[in-house]
């Protein structure tokens, strides 16, 4: 659905996007993740034919975004950053106007507006003035606008920014729903959003892709150490003896806790899951175990890990 090759966008004195190459298949929900100023919005603007790239090519549904802009725009539902809407219009009136701009006939636009109003839960507010709606509803109007012409690809730039937790939840649910029938490219700097809604993630920093994979794979490959923590009730010297020279263990740390419990932290050599080994030791010695966990790195950790060096440079 999206084919991007060596995409570069330079502004005077600054390179916003630098040699980006990626592709998105039909039906995928892909998250575009990166700190502010990473080049997410610029890439999305190029993909939606708003502005051209300095070099490189980008194709959407087989059409070049610069030379066949109209074809691309017909196939894209784009919700820009901050979801700009005509606040003086009523919801239905606005969606109908947008449908007409996107080339839908009178009858077709009426049908489609009815459909997206239902799909986005806007039927109750269809006659309200957009400026009087809550931010959550406005976001739904923006989504309905992006969907009104039945696009192949939906591009959403920071769709949940500035919403309260309940609104974020309902907008995310809506995005998930949209993802069942459309290809979605979603940008955000909120990591949990990508974890919840996307099947694949592209991490962008300073205009280049620094990681691209499924969220699970990223967690597996980049889980920094897969440390296992156990809280065991046993004398310290016996514990030290028991955990000495275990296979696959790079390092063991002990720290005393409340009561007779001792916290044992084991770091694996090559990402191996050490929980069965710990459990086996506890069982053999008849120790009392009250917790056994393997730290699973969230996307947030991965993100910080990947962008840390560069951030420090910035600071």
């Amino acid at each position: 659905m999206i084919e991007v090759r060596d995409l570069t966008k330079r502004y005077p004195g600054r390179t916003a996007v630098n040699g980006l190459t990626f592709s998105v298949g039909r039906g995928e929900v892909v998250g575009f993740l990166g700190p502010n100023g990473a080049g997410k919005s610029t890439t999305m603007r190029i993909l939606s034919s708003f502005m051209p790239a300095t070099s490189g090519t980008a194709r959407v549904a087989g059409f070049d975004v610069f030379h066949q802009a109209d074809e691309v725009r017909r196939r894209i539902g784009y919700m820009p950053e901050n979801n700009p809407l005509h606040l003086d219009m009523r919801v239905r009136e606005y969606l109908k106007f947008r449908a007409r701009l996107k080339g839908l006939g009178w009858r077709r636009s009426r049908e489609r507006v009815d459909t997206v109003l239902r799909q986005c839960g806007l039927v109750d507010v269809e006659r309200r003035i957009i400026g009087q709606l809550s931010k959550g509803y406005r976001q739904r109007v923006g989504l309905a606008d992006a969907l009104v012409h039945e696009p192949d690809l939906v591009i959403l730039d920071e769709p949940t920014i500035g919403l309260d937790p309940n609104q974020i939840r309902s907008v995310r649910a809506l995005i998930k729903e949209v993802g069942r029938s459309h290809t979605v490219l979603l940008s955000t700097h909120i990591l949990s959003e990508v974890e919840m809604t996307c099947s694949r993630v592209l991490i962008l920093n300073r205009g280049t892709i620094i990681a691209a994979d499924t969220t699970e794979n990223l967690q597996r490959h980049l889980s920094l150490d897969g440390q296992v923590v156990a809280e065991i009730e046993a004398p310290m010297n016996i514990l030290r003896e028991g955990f000495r020279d275990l296979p696959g263990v790079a390092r063991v740390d002990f720290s005393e806790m409340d009561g007779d419990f001792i916290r044992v932290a084991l770091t694996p050599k090559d990402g191996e899951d050490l929980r069965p080994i710990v459990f086996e030791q506890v069982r053999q010695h008849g120790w009392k175990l009250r917790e056994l966990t393997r730290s699973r790195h969230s996307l947030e950790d991965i993100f910080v890990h990947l962008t840390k060096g560069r951030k420090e440079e910035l600071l």
Partner: protein
Amino acid sequence: MAVFLALVRRELGVAFNSLTGYVVVSVVLLLCGFSLVDIVTKLNGGREAGPVVGLFYRSAYFWLILLPLPSVITMRSFAAERSSGTYESLMTTPVGDWQVVLAKYAGAMVFYALTWLPLLAVLAALRQITHEEAFLEVRATCCAFLGIGLIGSLFISMGCFASALTRSQMVASMLAFLFTMGLWLVGLGPALADNADAGTGRFLSHVSVLRHMDDFAAGIIDSRHVVFHLTGTLLFLFLTARVVESRKWK
């Protein structure tokens, strides 16, 4: 065409969904009312020589409407869309740059034409009061309205251009007013500079909006004036389209 009409309707909606449109129409109505009182007072004084029909078009009230009106109407057209961000969502629909420019111009022209309708009432009132058939005489009135339309067309295209240059409506309206006022002041040239050489004088009188309006008000349709305003309009619409396209060059 359907897209173009949807955009023009939207432009009119912008004016009349907010107070702006009504305030503009009210102010024009008020100024027309003042000019009516002014003309009647002058006629009662009997000091005015020359054709009475031209009285309105030479009055300060007329220019007080015509000069700032286009800049007020057009200040929103591009600047407001840019500052609110709707420009981006507009430009990512399959609508051409020229289509957007022409629709914004057409929307502004329709609004401009609507605001001049009270003038017909003023003329009708004058005819009633003075029993002077010349007021609201069909041909003369048509010529005057053609003049108002042509001058307005040029001014509005200047306004669209100014609005496309900036994100601030305030800056857009001031810039547009600068353009229209500049052209109007240049037109005062022949009257102010008696000793200007023939070439300069001729040039200045060719671009004198005041003179153009005098001719139109007198019922004269000079093709030079028509061509001047139409080419001027096209020039500024072309420049506006170039500014809109300029996002592709950056």
